[in-house]
């Protein structure tokens, strides 16, 4: 049978090419795998949710609270179907698993990128995969945001309104872009079917395609090798093959990960649609985007509103600068990371971050910047709590924007110097003792 299949499908070639792929043995290499498993869980739970979801914002009578014949209680069909999903056995759980996994997928991919950055794994020949990874991160965030809108409760409605106005803030073409993207003036009659199409067809398709490219390039180029591989067998690939050694590890990781997600979902509720209620004009106090977009939110909160100006008939306002120009700059900086490295040699071994203190310091400073902006997202709370006042909030947060990243850069340089001197002392001791042994 093996031979029969092999003669037709060349299984042995598949085995040699892919199934024998060597995986480096180090826990930090599991981060990418966790991202991949999250995507798989998201697609599975997403299919189940889509089966019971009604993508429409036309008004229907709320079957849980129909009102009276004269004044029926009308709510959008999408919101109604979200209520119905919650009422199904395991329905709310399914929504929570989907939501938690989405958060974990973004978190795992961010930490995965940090691993790649700090160990220099973005260097030649892996620049292309860094860029594909960046696209994956951007499209994962877009998929998450569009998923946010689908329950069409008041929270989703308010979020959608801000997203619409960000799209509309693009100079010259903004209004057209926003209307084309969200099916007419906000809130268009077809906005939910439109966003549904993005969330279940377009964006997952893009994510799957990019993931496939990411994986294939990774298999072709091989993982960077951890440092121990250099000592064991220089310039040889060290690791465990996918079949049969890595597979049980992966299965175990999947089960453990799925277990943790289910545990989270069982005890920590997310996005209670009943609490927020159907779309209304009552704003939600302390509405915030998910944590990975909080930095954009915070930047918008501290950018002064009179920053805008007119250019050739286009209106360049603070919203456009804060929500489109600034993230483009930040993402552009991240895209440019492999181009800042001028080495011509191919990189085989993951680098020790402390051997590259400037890169390490810049990375830590960059993350500190995003943290400062995320804290700025809590500006109203900081003011209400009396930590900052109305007048000094922006000043303090802008000073922190520049000061804290700079401070963390220099702190990293100091710590690295300390680590190095310890290491050198170790090496000296070893040399002395070796000399004494002889």
């Amino acid at each position, binding site marked *: 049978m093996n031979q029969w299949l092999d003669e037709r499908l060349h299984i042995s070639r598949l085995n040699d090419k892919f199934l024998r792929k060597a995986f480096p043995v180090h826990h930090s290499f599991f981060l990418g795998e966790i991202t991949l498993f999250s995507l798989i869980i998201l697609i599975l739970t997403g299919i189940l949710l889509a089966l019971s979801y009604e993508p429409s914002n036309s008004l229907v009578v709320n079957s849980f609270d129909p009102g009276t014949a004269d004044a029926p209680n009308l709510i959008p069909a999408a919101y109604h179907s979200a209520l119905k999903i919650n009422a199904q056995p395991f329905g709310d759980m399914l929504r929570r698993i989907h939501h938690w996994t989405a958060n974990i997928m973004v978190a795992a991919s961010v930490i995965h990128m940090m691993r790649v950055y700090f160990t220099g794994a973005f260097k030649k020949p892996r620049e292309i995969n860094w860029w594909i990874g960046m696209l994956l991160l951007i499209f994962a965030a877009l998929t998450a945001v569009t998923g946010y809108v689908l329950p069409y409760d008041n929270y989703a409605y*308010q979020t959608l*309104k*801000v997203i*619409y*106005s*960000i799209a*509309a803030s693009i100079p010259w073409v903004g209004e*057209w872009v926003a*209307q*084309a*993207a969200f*099916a*007419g*003036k*906000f*809130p*268009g*009659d*077809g906005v939910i079917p439109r966003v549904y199409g993005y969330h279940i067809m377009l964006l997952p398709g893009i994510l799957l395609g990019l993931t496939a490219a990411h994986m294939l390039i990774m298999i072709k180029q091989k993982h960077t090798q951890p440092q121990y591989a250099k000592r064991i067998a220089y310039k040889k690939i060290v690791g465990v093959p996918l079949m049969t050694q890595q597979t049980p590890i992966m299965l175990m990781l999947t089960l453990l990960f799925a277990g943790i997600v289910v545990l989270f979902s069982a005890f920590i509720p997310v996005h209670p649609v009943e609490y927020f209620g159907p779309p*209304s*004009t*009552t*704003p*939600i*106090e*302390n*509405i915030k985007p998910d944590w990975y977009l909080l930095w954009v*939110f915070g930047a*918008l*909160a*501290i*950018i*002064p*509103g*009179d920053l*805008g100006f007119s250019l050739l008939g286009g*209106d360049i*306002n*603070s*919203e456009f600068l*804060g929500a489109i120009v600034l993230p483009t700059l930040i993402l552009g900086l991240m895209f440019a990371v492999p181009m800042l490295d001028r080495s011509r040699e191919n990189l085989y071994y993951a680098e020790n971050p402390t051997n590259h203190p400037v890169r390490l310091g810049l990375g830590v400073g960059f993350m500190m910047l995003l943290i400062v902006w995320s804290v700025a997202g809590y*500006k*109203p709370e900081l*003011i*209400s709590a009396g930590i900052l006042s*109305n*007048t000094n*909030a922006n000043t303090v947060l802008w000073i922190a924007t520049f000061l804290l990243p700079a401070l963390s850069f220099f702190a990293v340089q100091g710590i690295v110097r300390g680590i190095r001197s310890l290491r050198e002392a170790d090496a000296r001791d070893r040399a002395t003792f070796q000399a004494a042994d002889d």
Partner: protein
Amino acid sequence: MTRFKRNDPEITRRKFINVAMGTTAAVGGVSLLSTLGAANPVFRLTPDKMPPLKGDLLVHAEGSKEGRPVRLEDLSIQLVRAWPMGKNENGEDVIRKGDPNNILALYRFPQGQLVAPTNLEATINGQVVAYSDVCTHAGCSVSDSDVNAGEMRCPCHSGQYDPKRGAVVTGGPPPRPLAQLPITQQGENLVVSGFFLTYPYPFTSKEEWESHIQEVEEQLA
């Protein structure tokens, strides 16, 4: 490269393929553009999507009184949200909430607290004032401030307004004050007496807003 240009009466394979690819790209590009054009549906200005018009009644937008006319005694220095209610072609009442940007904020301050740049002519007795309740920054509904009574704060990016002084921006990112809506009292009811005095959200310039007014007037004529 040859020095002699070959004079072939028939079209070469390369040329044929190039022309075919060019044609395909052109046709594909045009069809993509037309598809993108179709992605943006036509906007119809129906009575429920018109801005507050002269003669519109103000009705409660939320709470137990939702849909009922706003009375003077309902108002205080606490924000009350209202919709304008007008008539459609058949003379039936229609609440103009088809455009969520029509939501209004009503306040009633003790005599003398409302000061310029509020347009006092457009208020009731210099006490009751109506603003567009849509933040000029990102279009969220603005709420009462949780720190200073009688002030407003937008929950989205913490824009702040002072409704006693023409809703000027007192903090945060909004680029301009909330638009004031002229109102009068007719019997028990609050009635709109004209268009917004300045351009409300989502309009970004005076011209845009004026052309929108023109569109509305043409539709009504």
